[in-house]
């Protein structure tokens, strides 16, 4: 990362509150005066602008600002945390004093890690809110509304939204961390309701990433989201009841990678493994998935929704191999859990905002491409389900049980994709399902940039991806037993 972006983020945040480097140091030394392993001050300012169209009218839009500091003092496994919605010296003082109250009698273990000054950046430090004028945003929403309606007379309702977010962060820690970051994030979404003979169905499409809004105007990006939403909704008009029970399932490429996020990803986050509460705890080096599976978490892909130049503890974003040819290789770590497990942070320490504590979280998590032709994969199934689009998923990391909900799916009969079936939830046990992956396609795709992952009440943007893959048996939750 260039010093410039890091510094400008730092200056922006500290100048507003009239806080000098010397005052930061004093604050930190006071926080460290009790028996604290590591003190950390997190400064953040975030601006968000969103526009939405409903029933043909750009009827509402909002602008929001949040700015504050989070102070954390760590002693062994304990954390003291306090935050305030103001970046001012006296507030900083109160906040850090509250945070250090966690201290216990003992010795101080403050350690400095070598601080890198130069590392690559994976997006530009731009403000996407101003990349397109308000007028242009309104025009774009109206254009896409009309375009979606023009695609098919059965389109009855169209909602379109644009969201642009600009975030500056600065992290100052007793371990020597002194880094800032500027993170753009945009998102565009279209959802439609179609109606035919009294039956109504919906379809949704959207995308985004860490870039500006000009991407919507290139290669009909915005129009393509509208096409996709309408296509999905029309398919569902013909959907029949989904089957119920265990059967082979073929998952399409891209967003269905939510499978990996749930079945594997969460279970490999450092906190659960440090506490021994994950079904993957103490299993490094073991075969936990089919040898066809290699799964990585990668914060370094340029401009992706889940990418991070530095994480929220100032550790550079990285690519971490989680599972290699089926063998468990590593966990995703933040500083707290890494230290307690005797390893290094993998740059996965993330927080929703200054008002939340960092946790080990995913960035962009996906499976690498395999060798199979996607068509051959479908051909190999006698009777099963082909799932193309998903809503979202959830996992219980302790039992390993996870679900994800298909919103566009088809029956496979005699090796051919036939009729569409209604949305249904798929359920399985993470480690078991991963051993039943029997074919992996050569068509890796990443999702288009819509994912929000929730953990302990904190939402963070993430990416997922995968090639087409076949699971020999998973339970499909339809109504046709």
């Amino acid at each position, binding site marked *: 990362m260039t010093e410039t972006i890091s510094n400008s983020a730092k200056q922006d945040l500290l100048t507003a509150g009239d806080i000098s480097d010397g005052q930061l140091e004093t604050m930190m030394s006071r926080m460290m005066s009790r028996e604290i392993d590591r003190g950390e001050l997190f400064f953040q300012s975030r601006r968000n602008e969103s526009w939405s169209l409903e029933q043909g009218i750009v009827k509402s839009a909002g602008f929001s600002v949040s700015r504050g500091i989070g102070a954390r003092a760590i002693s062994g496994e304990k954390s003291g945390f306090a935050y305030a*919605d103001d970046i001012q010296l006296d507030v900083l003082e109160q906040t850090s004093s509250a945070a250090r109250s966690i201290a216990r009698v003992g010795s101080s273990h403050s350690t400095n890690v070598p601080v890198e000054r130069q590392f690559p950046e994976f997006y530009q430090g731009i403000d996407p809110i101003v990349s397109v004028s308000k007028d242009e945003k*309104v025009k774009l929403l109206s254009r896409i509304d009309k375009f979606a309606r023009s695609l098919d007379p059965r389109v009855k*309702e169209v909602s379109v939204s644009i969201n642009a977010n600009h975030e500056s962060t600065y992290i100052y820690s007793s371990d020597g961390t002194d880094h800032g970051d500027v993170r753009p994030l945009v998102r565009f979404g279209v959802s439609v309701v179609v109606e035919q003979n009294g039956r109504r169905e*919906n379809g949704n499409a959207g995308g985004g990433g860490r870039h500006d809004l000009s991407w919507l105007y290139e290669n009909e990006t915005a129009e393509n989201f509208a096409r996709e939403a309408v296509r999905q909704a029309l398919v569902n008009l013909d959907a029949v009841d989904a089957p119920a029970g*265990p059967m082979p399932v073929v998952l399409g490429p891209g967003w269905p990678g939510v499978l990996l996020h749930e079945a594997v990803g969460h279970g490999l986050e450092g906190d659960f493994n440090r506490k021994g509460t994950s079904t993957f705890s103490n299993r490094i080096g073991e075969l936990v998935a089919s040898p066809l599976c290699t799964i990585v978490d990668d914060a370094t892909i340029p401009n992706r929704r889940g990418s991070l130049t530095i994480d929220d503890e100032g550790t550079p974003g990285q690519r971490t191999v989680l599972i290699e040819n089926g063998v468990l290789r590593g966990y995703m770590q933040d500083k707290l859990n890494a230290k307690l497990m005797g390893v290094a942070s993998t740059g996965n320490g993330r927080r929703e905002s200054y008002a939340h504590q960092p946790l080990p979280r995913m960035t962009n998590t996906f499976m690498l491409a395999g060798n199979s032709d996607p068509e051959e994969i479908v051909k190999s199934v006698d009777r099963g389900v082909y799932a193309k689009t998903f809503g979202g998923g959830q996992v219980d990391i302790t039992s390993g*049980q996870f679900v994800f909900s298909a919103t566009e799916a088809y029956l496979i009969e005699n090796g051919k994709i036939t009729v569409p079936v209604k949305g*249904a939830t798929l359920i399985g046990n993470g480690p078991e399902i991963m051993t039943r992956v029997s074919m992996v396609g050569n068509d890796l795709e990443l999702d288009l940039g819509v994912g929000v992952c929730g953990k302990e009440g904190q939402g963070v943007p993430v990416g997922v991806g995968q090639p087409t893959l076949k699971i020999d048996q998973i339970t499909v939750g339809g109504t046709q037993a």
Partner: protein
Amino acid sequence: MTTTLVDVNEDTAQTVHTPDDEAKLSEFVSRILEVAKSGGATAAEVTAGDDIGLDVKMREGDIDTVEFSRDRGFDITVYRGNRRGNASTTDTREESIQEAVDAALAIAEHTEEDSFSGLADPDLLAVNFPDLDLYRCDPMDVEQLKDAAQTAESTALEFDKKIYRSDGARASVSSNCVAYGNSLGFLDAYRSSSSSLYADVIAKSSNGMQRAAWFTMARQRSELDTPECVGTKAAEHAIRKLDPRPISTGEYPVLFDQTVAMGLILHLLNALSGRPQYLRSTYLLDSLEKQVTSSEVSLKEYPFIPGAMGSRAYDSEGVATSEKYIVENGMAKNYLLSSYSGRKLGMQSTGNASGVCNLTVEAQTIPLTDVLKQMDRGLVVTSLMGQGVNILTGDYSRGASGYWMENGEYAHAVDELTVAAKLDDMYKNMIAFGDDVETRRNIRTGSILISNMTVAAL
């Protein structure tokens, strides 16, 4: 006491809200409304909040996290005629007021005319402000919270050898002050409080680990389940989930236990709310005076119960709340409407811009053991996973785990199941109601038995 925990108590003890804070926050709202008016807004409304909280998490007998929180901010909506703009900020410094108002006004120059937009109808605004006794704030005391969490955790850990470890017990207190005002002259502020206790434990057997949690929340600690009760319930649930055994895919009666029955009722309320009605994106389109549930059920709101979690005299637009049926003997009686969705549907706001108030499921309840006897053989769902609820099509398909019942008694744990049906059938097939009603939550229901759903299993 040599730790600094004591210092913190001294620091924070004074920071819970006083009546004076209500007056200050009201005055703050008035000032913002003035700024909006002089900036050219033809109408405006402002909500401002000030929340203070303390949360202590214990894990394996020691403090895991102590968290102090202070959230302040305001949200302003301005109108230029029928054009609307909104801004919100956590930055409450004087100079930031103008910034936020300007941002909202700038947006209102670009949004389009919407003849249904605007403030609430003046004659619907609340004029009575009964004392709802919502502020019973416990002291922000780290030691007290620590003790409660520790007792809950140790009770769970000592409950049975099968309890493998704790994933933490958490005790919290929060003190909230909120003010709302609009350019029609409405201005009010009130304080509310909440206390909660939560325990999350893991049981283990040779067949693997299972997690379960128990949660209790009320206006004050004295109304909560005791720490011993929270620990015991979490431990009992975790142990009952151990050693799941397979069942066959098929059609079975399904009991939604009290904790998941709330969610079931929430889907129905969503389907009856204003936005999906005017967007024609609900399976319960145009359903007033039509049967939407079993005729044995009524859903009624009671907004004025003193000290209840869902009590309020007015909604987020200042519209007076009222005691009313949403569903009466199975018939839909009222949609849940804001001013905007009301106008879109040619109706008036029902005072539900911020949801329902103490929504109570009214039905003939019987002891839970009798409900289970009536079910005889079937599934008790204690936890649900995933998003598989489609309000538009009325399709329901979710991941589930719980217990298998034989002859009305616990037979064994089950997991990795899905339960699926049409929502419309599920509500019409609600055939029995347990007396295990949780009155401290905003949706007041006990366990609910549905006569038939598709259960898929491996």
